[in-house]
């Protein structure tokens, strides 16, 4: 279902509210190169004194424009590198999620293998070189996306992630972001019954589910296809072997068969590099699988905020009617009212007590009204910001997905051309026999 999220009014409105808006915002990425390389195994000790092995990655940065204003002040060295492990990336991401709730935060590569079909391809072992390499690529992509985001790229914690060797973890914890996180995390898991769910976010939720389902499906089938194609090519190596053996007993046909066998071996070997390339596109698609999750969490936050608003509205209505009843209770002489009954039974409040109660209620009402205003303001700001970032995300998504499809098609074209050339060569071996 197509997402009908924002309209032009949203975007125009958002321009004014976001800081540093200009025609085309350059982000940190335009002056800084980031790469994640050289995974290495380390051993260390956990918090409970148990030995552990883990992988660290080298995060390198290189400044391409030393004079740029976009550069944080702390970035003084043209090139800089430091080691980071996966849990630190996770920490960074959690921090960003809590600190910028209205932003679609880029995903990290998976921590564990959770899909069956991945297990089959040997990715289960977290020290498997293939798994580590693909994770490395995912981590790099994460950093690049953060650096490309106008708002995220300006975050100090992000900067120090890139440039602060010691004490970065402590710095993150010092921000106290966890406090913000805990209270919200608990409620984030609940479902919210909203009286007037926002249509835009409902659509967004549906869209993200579809996106996730479609990509998951695609990846599953492509994995199967890759295995089959691999099998088909490798079987041709058997042709190579039998042609070679056969050539031994033939006189005139010997040379032709021998060369043909050689080409069959080439054909069999040619699939490896193609499948490696295809893996990178599959990984790029997988990123968007996780992005779907990020979209959903945006929706959940909106629901939470709206829930707060509705709750407060309800409270206000209740308090107001309480007050009304209180006030009416003074004048009622005729007609049945519960207050009247209890008054008769237990004695009425004295006028002073009643006054006090009414005053209390008025205070509460005042308080609630203020809270409601604040909640409403928070909700509307959130909606504005999040929808705007969702739009940015969507545009990026279109670009990214299109590029993936283009590259995949180019790869297929390359494969076909290789195949044509190879079978032509093989044919020549036979026609010249």
């Amino acid at each position, binding site marked *: 279902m197509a997402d009908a999220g924002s309209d*032009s009014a949203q975007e125009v409105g*958002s321009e004014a509210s976001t800081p540093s808006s200009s025609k085309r915002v350059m982000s940190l990425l335009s002056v800084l190169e980031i790469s994640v390389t050289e995974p290495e195994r380390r051993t260390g000790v956990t918090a409970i004194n148990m030995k552990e092995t883990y992988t660290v990655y080298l995060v390198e940065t290189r400044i391409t424009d030393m004079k740029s204003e976009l550069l944080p002040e702390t970035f003084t060295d043209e090139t800089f590198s430091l080691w980071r492990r996966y849990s630190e990336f996770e920490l960074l991401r959690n921090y960003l999620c809590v600190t910028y709730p209205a932003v679609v935060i880029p995903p990290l590569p998976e921590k564990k293998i959770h899909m069956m079909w991945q297990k089959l391809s040997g990715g289960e072992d977290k020290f498997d070189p293939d798994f580590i390499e693909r994770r490395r690529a995912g981590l790099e992509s994460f950093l690049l996306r953060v650096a490309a985001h106008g708002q995220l790229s300006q975050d100090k914690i992000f900067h120090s992630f890139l440039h602060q060797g010691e004490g970065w973890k402590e710095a993150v914890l010092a921000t106290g972001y966890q406090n913000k996180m805990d209270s919200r995390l608990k409620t984030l898991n609940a479902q919210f019954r909203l009286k007037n769910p926002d249509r835009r976010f409902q659509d967004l939720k549906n869209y993200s589910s579809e996106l996730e389902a479609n990509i998951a499906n695609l990846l599953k089938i492509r994995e199967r*296809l890759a295995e089959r194609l691999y099998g088909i090519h490798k079987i041709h190596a058997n042709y190579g072997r039998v042609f070679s053996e056969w050539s031994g007993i033939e006189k005139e046909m010997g040379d032709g068969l021998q060369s043909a066998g050689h080409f069959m071996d080439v054909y069999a070997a040619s699939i490896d590099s193609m499948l490696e390339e295809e893996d990178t596109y599959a990984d790029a698609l997988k990123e968007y699988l996780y992005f779907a999750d990020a979209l959903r969490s945006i929706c959940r936050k909106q629901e939470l905020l709206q829930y707060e608003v509705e709750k407060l509205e309800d409270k206000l209505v209740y308090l107001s009617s309480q007050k009304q009843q209180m006030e009416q209770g003074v004048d009622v002489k005729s007609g049945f009212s519960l207050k009247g009954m209890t008054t008769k039974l237990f004695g009425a409040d004295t006028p002073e007590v009643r006054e006090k109660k009414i005053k209390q209620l008025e205070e509460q009402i005042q308080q609630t009204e203020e809270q409601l205003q604040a909640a409403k303001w928070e909700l509307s700001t959130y909606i504005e910001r999040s929808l705007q970032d969702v739009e940015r995300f969507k545009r990026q998504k279109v670009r990214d997905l*299109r590029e993936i499809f283009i590259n995949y098609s180019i790869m297929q074209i390359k494969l076909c051309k290789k195949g*044509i050339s190879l079978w032509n060569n093989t044919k020549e071996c036979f026609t010249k026999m």
Partner: protein
Amino acid sequence: MADGTDSGFSEGQPSGPGGYSGPISPDIDPLNITTSTVDLEESLDMGAEGDAKSTRDDITALTQSSLAGLRLDDALASDVHDLFVTVDDPEKHITNMESYITYRVTTKTTRSDYDSHEYVVRRRYQDFLWLRERLEATNPTHLIPPLPEKHSFRRLDRFSPEFLKTRQAALQKFLSRIVDHPTLSFNENLTIFLTAKELASHRKQAQGIMGKMGSSMRSMAAGYMLKNRSPEYATMQEYVNTFGAKMGTIDRINQRLLKEMTDYQQDLREFGPVFTLWSNSETELAPAMLGMAGGVEKCEKALEQQISDQEHVFAPPVKEYILYAEAMKAVLKRRDSIQMEYELTIEELNRKRNDREQLKMSDQSYSLGAFLGKDPEEVRQQKRTKLDTQIEELLKQVEVSNDSVECANADLKADLERWHRNKRRDVKEVFSELCDRNIQYYQECLSAWEETLQEINQKSELETASTLATPTSSCPATPNLATPTSSITPPLPATPTKDGTEGGAGDGEKQ
């Protein structure tokens, strides 16, 4: 080239006449070459060899240009071919007892030993089997071409059109090879097969089962016991064994390939629709996704064709050569047994000669005859006469046997030479064909993906150019984030249109 007669064999050498197997039935003739029938009939009426040859040249020219499916089986310039046979038109017959298929066998000939110029009969597989058995029995020294196997295992349906087509082609080839053989083509069993209205009565002739068994037992032992077998026969034996084994391996590889390719095709069938389904959630990317779906579908179709070709065009000739290797083993055995007989005869002769020598010096006084009252000298004389007769018989037998051996060797040599020539040509053609099919498959896939690429790129021209990788980009490993992307919308110039087509420039489009 999936025509009916020869699975995958294209024409042979244009020089000289060959075993032109006759016109193809229009039903299974994709190249529509039945027009050649008319020319052929006219040419066959000419009796003179010279005329026939020039017409053959015409035929050959015609063959070259349009009859790519017909096969000239024998390139010997000296052979005269005046017998042409076609197999076509499979028909199903259902009786109370069984159901079976018959094929129409059409013969056209100018030979004088045939009563008529043309014959049309219907034959079933059993009849072909009979013919082959008879040929083997009457021509033990010759290599008899193989018949396709009785049962097909891959397709359990023995009446499926593909199976019938393949079998028909194999039967055609079988007959063509016989007709092209200088000796076999004159065999009376062949004549009966081609001309008799009804074969059942002929088939009931005693086939000499006991004799067959006896000779087969002898031939089994022959190979091991031959004393004077020339090493070339051992070489031949080795070659045939290895060749047969290699053909078997190739056949098994084929089967595996077919299975994998079929599985791959199944998965491809699921792959395309996922893109189509996904395109329903997207507006801007929908054309690109539909383009992907289209590309995958076209590849799947190409693969379907490739699988069919692999199974019906490439596999049958390989199987046939496996059977040919078996036929060669059989004829080698028979040759061995003929030589065996010769050697046994010589042994016998030598034994008798030895006996005769012994007799001269022996003392017959203690022989049985003397015991019965005969004069020992007379006994000696009698025995001597008997031995002389035997030796004379044996000498004759040895001569005959020697002739047999020489004939057998000559026949075998000639047949093998012919076989090697044909094999080389067949291998060239069959495997070139296989390569062609693969090339075609990849070409179809190539154009499918080029089209897809175009469709994907079409939309992109309307997008911000700076953020796109051009088709010539060489390192697409990570998603393109090299150029800055803004998290904040630049001023939106145009209002987005509903149907997803961009009204204005800039990246203010939806999704």
